[in-house]
């Protein structure tokens, strides 16, 4: 995730101080991608070096305020008008794990898939609960947070659908090669053995 772009976009709204940037970022995205305040300060230093932000004095409580330079405004405009690059798929630990699980001997793939499905379902239940709370209020920031939650919901849903697909394929392969073992019995014994 680009902390740099996010901070610049927030400063487009109004000049702010470091801690305030962090608060505003989290108000929009919940704690989905927590930002530590040290990260905010180092990023601001880099942005100042690159000529995208500049100090704008201090507020009454002595907080150092930052604002965009002309180049900073241009950078924000460019960010919002350019699609996010998809040069190569992000490394997906689960896809890699499954690819290895179906090839490394002795791995209990059925149980692996069910455990993952259960865990992802649990996360999906949490997001849905948060979404119900977010939908109950109507502020603009809540709209932002609610859209971030939707993104997490759709990603979890896609992961579960993919797991269902993997399971169906693995089961088909298993029944083709060992037709004498009933798949569910097989899966359940494995699960008990795992306890």
């Amino acid at each position: 995730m680009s902390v740099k772009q996010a901070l610049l976009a927030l400063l487009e709204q109004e000049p702010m101080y470091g801690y305030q940037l962090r608060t505003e970022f989290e108000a929009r995205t919940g704690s989905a991608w927590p930002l530590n305040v040290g990260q905010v300060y180092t990023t601001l230093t880099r942005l100042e070096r690159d000529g995208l932000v500049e100090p704008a004095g201090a507020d009454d409580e002595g907080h150092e305020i930052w604002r965009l330079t002309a180049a900073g405004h241009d950078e924000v405009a460019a960010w919002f008008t350019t699609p996010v690059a998809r040069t190569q798929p992000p490394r997906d630990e689960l896809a890699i794990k499954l690819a290895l699980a179906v090839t490394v001997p002795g791995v209990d793939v059925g149980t692996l898939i069910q455990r993952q499905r259960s865990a992802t379902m649990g996360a999906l239940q949490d997001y849905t609960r948060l979404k119900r709370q977010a939908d109950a209020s109507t502020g603009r920031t809540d709209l932002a947070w609610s859209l971030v939650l939707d993104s997490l919901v759709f990603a979890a849903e896609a992961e579960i659908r993919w797991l269902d697909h993997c399971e169906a394929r693995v089961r088909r392969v298993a029944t083709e090669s060992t037709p004498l073992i009933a798949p569910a019995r097989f899966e359940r014994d494995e699960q008990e053995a795992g306890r």
Partner: protein
Amino acid sequence: MSPSSVVLRLHGVTRVHGEGATRVEALRGVSFAAHAGELVAVMGPSGSGKSTLLTIAGGLDQPTEGRVEVEGTDLVALPRAGRSRLRRTSIGYVFQGFNLIPALSAAENVALPLELDGTRTRAARQAALRALEEVGIVELADRFPDDMSGGQQQRVAIARAIVGERRLVLADEPTGALDSETGEEVLRLLRARCDAGAAGVLVTHESRHAAWADRVVFLRDGVVVDESGCEPVESLLETSDAR
């Protein structure tokens, strides 16, 4: 959680269809409970026994083996008339195909189970209007099903399932033919009903909809293989007892 809050309980339920070569074990030793205030989702591939579980829970079908209790009453031991009565008074059922009667208006469809149970027409209509109000379409009370959208018909079907303060609401793919926004609305209604104290069981293919539930039960080939959620996993413990 106190035992009195258990609204639905299945004990080692097995359902076998057919014999010999055509024999199918649709459910095998399933134990399962739904508590007041709880929405439970049931997920599983096609043919895993979801609808069978629901029809047995609703007294529409009988288990080959095992016990089914609704608010402490044993459905299997109950004579047919008593079972029908319990079905009309305590159990609401939402079918995938809505199952509304085309010759009756929305309000008449909703009032039907109460009238069948001997409630006077006026009182039944009032209860029906309250239920339609709850699902947000009281203004369509005198429309006929054919003159409503799929989403509106599904709301009528839900109103019929909750009319008269039913404590157990069973829904089989209630979001099946609906777009995602309307489907979500249906979930909101079921959720609200459970938050108000009913026990709900929802069969769905969509994980996004199952996520509205407190617990998700996974069925495979007639067996409960797993559960997820933060509520007490009592029925999992029961399954291990039953083994």
